[in-house]
């Protein structure tokens, strides 16, 4: 695969904080327009990868390019939804104002020129995630799913080439998870966006993703879901016996992982 077709290219890439390595020697290429789920246990370095892509953390070693250039902070071509984004109930701001921050919230001063353009972009983005009905209500008072849609609208409003979504599903019930993933998949397909989505449960993602990227034990491993989510490869990635079961509806259950994750000291 040539680098032109890749949204993210990494060769022998290592990341860490100071002397503490988080993961190392990652070599991968994420094609443009693809949907990748990033999975792995807590603390394995999923958010470290996100920080690296956003240019908030320099790699300790190796080569990385994001959309054809070295990662840089404030890259407008990346639409981002941070981890744990849900708003204080008292937060006094409308969804519309929040999405507007995605347009020019990083600029100094107050919005003087381009008010009409900004308002139009905000309106379009809100409509594209189906959030028109509640965009004028107080952000903190909206449901988790509604907030997540507005976070997505904020990420989309600048017309990015890539969406970087750090656990957008973690505070949602199953129905909302499916609805949000469907929405992300639809929008990404329509606009040709590359999507990187961190999740804990791969099931709601399975109908939409092209790749899974597993981060565990200081290693990154990427492949098609069918290749990676098998007993053999997950056992290898986690270096412990893991079994992948499938039910009649195609949902996968990873057995043996929960114990390892929840009892890391035993």
């Amino acid at each position, binding site marked *: 695969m040539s680098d032109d077709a890749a949204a993210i290219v990494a060769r022998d890439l290592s990341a860490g904080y100071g002397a503490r390595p988080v993961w190392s020697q990652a070599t991968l290429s994420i094609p443009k327009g693809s949907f990748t789920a990033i999975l792995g246990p807590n603390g394995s370095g999923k958010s470290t990868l996100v920080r690296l892509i*956003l240019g*908030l953390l320099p790699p300790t070693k190796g080569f990385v390019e994001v959309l054809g250039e070295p990662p840089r*902070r*404030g890259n407008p071509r*990346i639409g*981002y*939804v*941070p*981890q744990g*984004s849900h*708003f*204080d109930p*008292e*937060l*006094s*701001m*409308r969804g519309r*104002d*929040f999405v507007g*921050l*995605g347009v*020019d*919230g*990083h*600029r*100094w*001063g*107050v*919005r003087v020129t381009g008010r009409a353009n900004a308002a139009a972009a905000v309106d379009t983005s809100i409509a594209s995630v189906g959030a028109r009905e509640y965009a004028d*209500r*107080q*952000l903190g008072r909206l449901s988790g799913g509604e907030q997540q849609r507005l976070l997505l609208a*904020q990420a989309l409003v600048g017309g990015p080439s890539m969406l970087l979504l750090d656990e957008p599903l973690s505070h949602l019930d199953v129905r909302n998870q499916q609805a949000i993933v469907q929405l992300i998949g639809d929008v990404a397909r329509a606009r040709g966006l590359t999507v990187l989505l961190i999740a804990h449960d791969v099931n709601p993602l399975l109908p939409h993703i092209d790749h899974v990227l597993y981060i565990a034990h200081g290693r990154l491993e990427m492949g098609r879901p069918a290749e990676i989510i098998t007993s053999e490869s997950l056992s290898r990635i986690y270096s412990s016996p893991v079994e992948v079961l499938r039910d009649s509806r195609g949902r996968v259950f990873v057995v043996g992982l929960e114990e390892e994750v929840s009892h890391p000291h035993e």
Partner: protein
Amino acid sequence: MGDLFHYDFMVHAFEAGTVIAIVAGAIGYFVVLRGSAFAAHALSHIGFAGATGAVVLSLNPIIGLLAFTLGAGVAIGALGNRLRSRDVTIGIVLAWTLGLGVLFISLYRGYATQAYALLFGEILGISSTDVIVTLVAGVITLVAVVVIYRPLLFSSVDEDLAAARGVPVTALSVAFMAILAVAVTEAVQVVGVLLIFALIVTPAAIAVRFTSRPALAIATGIVLALAFTWLGLAIAFYSPHPVSFFITTLAFATYVAVRIAEPLRARMTRTALSASA
């Protein structure tokens, strides 16, 4: 009504009070949005030690006040918005500086009125020079707020997101606390160290219950702060009681009225809905 502006001290009080109310109302929205109400309160108390220290050294108390609020503001800003233990740290420093203030008062024997003015405000003692100084400081604070308005709003709502978009969140946090320190120093003249909440936090806290549009909330906060200050001054002029009492009471009463009215309004809406259904 003519008597009200007959005296220079009342004119000065209205002039300085107006400037300070505008600054306090504007900055209050961000204080509420960032959850920095306690930091704002603490800044004024920490400033008290600086002011009393300046008095001991025969300096203008405002200089000591500004030095301590600025120093504390920058330090609190550098702690960041996310630190969970921030309020505890601030409280510990606050208690110590109040202790210092007590020491300084005891060192400066015999002049308790100075300390009293710092604690409870002395707006009727403002000179024409004070008015000019207040105006200059007020304009500087407002310009600073306008300059950092959008990134400050952004980082107040979601610091991670703002940082990813290239907003210098820590620098902004420090800048905001420095601006707040100047605003607090100004507002101390009107309501004093102990009552600062009434001018900086209460108007904004009321405003955000009426609107969730940032610009409108700021405007509402300013209008409320102005109303409390003007009305407080006017009532105090015709009464023997202190201005600070009227300003804080107006602010408190309005807040209580709004909080009581809210569930009532919600219930009425519900009843209306169920009646029409």
